[in-house]
């Protein structure tokens, strides 16, 4: 094959919601990069003060070179009717906070008064992330009961659920008094996005194992055994995620762009490899074959997701045949050939699955990108208002090609609106023509507002400055800012209408969760879904010797 000039994929293709909603975990995912970064840190259980029912306080920490991060856990009794995954819940089986440093007794007492209250409590700048979780009652009780009787729990039941606890929110970056990101952003170990959120979830997972072992032992001290490490390793932490995540990717355009850019840069660099090493190709095939096994345990009641999984399964069969018949490491630009074949023959879900797999052999390409996935968002906030109308118009024509062709006079294209609920200050989406409150719409209808801006720019004098234009157009200022951001960050904007009747909000959630590294997306409606995190991850004492492909050992 002759020298190939591989280009970045076009944002007008990649940034469609159906494509973004087909992303899968990869080597870039935050929970995997967390384990790579923290594997050399010293893990410790500093305090474990639970009663016989497993209620009380525990502290876990990571330490290196004098720096400590401590997870403080509070477990409590709640009545079955108080247990809810809805964001409107006010009581949880356990609540957690990640403290910066080693908490004093006074810190723990202060946190005990506030952390279990979550949104209505207050934490301080000494705390970094905050969360809560509920037991999967069926599995939790089964595991405790089995262990207390001296035998291991039923693996089939555990495989169906995959976790002992499910978190319903993980907060960071200044919420409820937590530390602002600027206080800690220069620490090398947390320069990847959401790293402290990932740390919290990882340590919570260990707490859940320690808690079941403790309760089992308390119930039957003579007979109880501890949870087998191989079983524990195959349990993760569940997560129920609602619409709260969706506006995040609209409200943080440069951060969002950096995530996608890194994925696209990795793909471009991998497709540009002329001679593929046989070991690398074998690693790809190994991960691919192991990952396929997970599809049978990807269970969901959602017809939308069932269709996607079935399409993925059928495409993977096709791809497996192609891989066996037509691919070998001797072929020049093998990855590019595979990618082009996938684009021609497979659906989006499977194409993006293969893209994730292609990253597996390439630490040298992926590792430097991890540090590029954060963003100094403030740098891009100011509008360069000295620039000309003609320039702004050209930016929109180049970067919002399909958006400016949408007819927003049609009701179906403005069917929905996004708002913040008074109850929990959480984002919601509702039908504009049936529900109350559209006058309080959040600025998340980017496509509609960009189109409005464009229509006005067409009528404006091209040689005028943007400052002149803004004097009389305050109502589109927010999208003027975005247009100048997309000029520098082409992957910063979803190339779809986020208020149209055909919007599938879980595509936005899944996109973000795939970057987290979640697996087994299980939509419970078109607005919320359950996932699993850290299933298969090394246990804390195994981290130092762990292999980054752990995720594929667990997917069965």
């Amino acid at each position, binding site marked *: 094959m002759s020298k190939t000039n591989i280009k970045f994929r076009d944002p007008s293709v990649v940034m469609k919601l159906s494509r973004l909603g087909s992303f899968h975990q990869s080597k870039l995912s935050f929970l995997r990069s967390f384990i790579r970064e923290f594997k050399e840190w010293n893990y410790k259980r500093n305090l474990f003060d639970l009663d016989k029912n497993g209620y009380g306080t525990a502290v876990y920490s990571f330490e290196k070179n004098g720096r400590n991060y401590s997870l403080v856990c509070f477990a409590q009794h709640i009545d079955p009717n108080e247990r809810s995954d809805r964001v409107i819940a006010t009581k949880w089986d356990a609540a957690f906070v990640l403290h910066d440093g080693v908490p004093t007794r006074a810190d723990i007492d202060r946190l005990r008064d506030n952390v279990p209250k979550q949104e209505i409590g207050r934490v301080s700048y000494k705390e970094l992330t905050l969360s809560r979780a509920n037991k999967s009652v069926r599995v939790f009780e089964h595991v405790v009961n089995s262990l207390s009787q001296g035998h291991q729990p039923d693996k089939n039941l555990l495989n169906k659920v995959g976790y002992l606890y499910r978190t319903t929110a993980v907060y960071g970056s200044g919420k409820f008094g937590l530390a602002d990101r600027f206080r800690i952003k220069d620490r090398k170990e947390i320069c990847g996005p959401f790293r402290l959120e990932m740390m919290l979830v990882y340590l919570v997972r260990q707490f859940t194992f320690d808690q079941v072992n403790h309760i089992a032992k308390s119930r039957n001290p003579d007979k109880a055994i501890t949870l087998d490490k191989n079983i524990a390793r195959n349990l993760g932490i569940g997560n129920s995620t609602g619409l709260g995540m969706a506006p995040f990717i609209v409200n943080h355009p440069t951060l969002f762009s950096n995530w996608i850019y890194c994925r696209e840069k990795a793909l471009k660099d991998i497709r540009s490899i002329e001679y593929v090493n046989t070991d690398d190709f074998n690693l790809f095939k190994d991960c691919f074959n192991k990952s396929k096994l997970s599809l049978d345990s990807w269970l969901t009641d959602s017809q939308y997701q069932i269709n996607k999984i079935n399409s993925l399964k059928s495409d993977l069969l096709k791809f497996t045949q192609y891989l066996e018949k037509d691919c070998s490491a001797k072929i020049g630009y093998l990855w590019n050939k595979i990618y082009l074949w996938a684009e021609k023959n497979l659906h989006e879900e499977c194409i993006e699955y293969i893209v994730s797999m292609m990253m597996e052999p390439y630490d040298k390409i992926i590792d430097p990108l991890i540090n590029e996935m954060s963003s100094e968002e403030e740098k891009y906030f100011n509008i360069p208002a*000295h620039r000309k109308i003609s320039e702004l118009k050209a930016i929109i024509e180049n970067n919002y090609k399909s958006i400016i062709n949408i007819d927003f006079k049609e009701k179906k294209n403005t069917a929905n609106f996004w708002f913040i609920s008074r109850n929990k200050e959480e984002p919601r989406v509702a039908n504009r023509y049936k529900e109350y409150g559209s006058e309080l719409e959040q600025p998340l209808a980017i496509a509609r507002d960009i189109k409005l801006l464009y229509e006005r720019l067409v009528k404006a004098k091209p040689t005028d400055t943007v*400052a002149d234009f803004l004097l009389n157009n305050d109502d*589109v*200022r*927010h999208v003027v800012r975005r247009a100048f951001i997309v000029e520098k960050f082409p992957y910063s904007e979803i190339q779809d209408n986020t208020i149209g009747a055909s919007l599938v909000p879980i595509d936005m959630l899944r996109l973000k969760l795939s970057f987290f590294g979640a697996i087994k997306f299980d939509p419970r409606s078109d607005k919320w879904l359950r996932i699993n995190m850290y299933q298969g991850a090394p246990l804390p004492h195994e981290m130092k010797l762990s292999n980054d492909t752990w995720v594929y050992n667990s997917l069965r």
Partner: protein
Amino acid sequence: MQSFSEIDITSKRASKAAGFDWGIAEEVGKNMRNLEMFGLPGVKNLNLYLQKIKKNPTEKPKKIEKENKPQSKEFCPIYCGTTFLDDCKMLERLSRIKFINVSYPLLFLPFISRASEIVGKKISVQYEKNNFLLNFDKTIFSKNIKNSEVVSLAKEVFIEFLENNNSFSIQEWKELYKLSEKTFVEETESSKKIGAGAGLTDND
């Protein structure tokens, strides 16, 4: 205490609720974060100002000139600020700018502070015996300001773009430079030949 992130988000939402468009409200959120970070009472002033405009709406400047006077009411510090920020590269040429009757002028400051960074010049602001020196949006030095006292109306606001001049004399600089020379090593013929990176001839 409230985090700066909470201050930003709540100020943005409150400004929207008070009638500003989202793009302007975003500016206010960022500005309140900056003011509070600089130790100035942004939240207190914004709260009072947003209450005030419910009953007494203020005025938006049409275009900023050397001297600016509202047509009938007081100027809105937020609209003055966005207009100033958007046009700051042009306004720099005016050097000195005066506003008459600006409501809650502290809310005008963070816009001018951001303009200072954009044009690369320090800017001084004076109103009602309060003096501020805005340094490229990195710091705000203030004189005579008492955080507990809120200026609800500035009859005159003076803004001046300061030229990038030294704050020291040539003599002071020479003395400092002479001292710094003591870190240099005396050159020998040999170190001249082999110590420098470039060749002795460079004729290409």
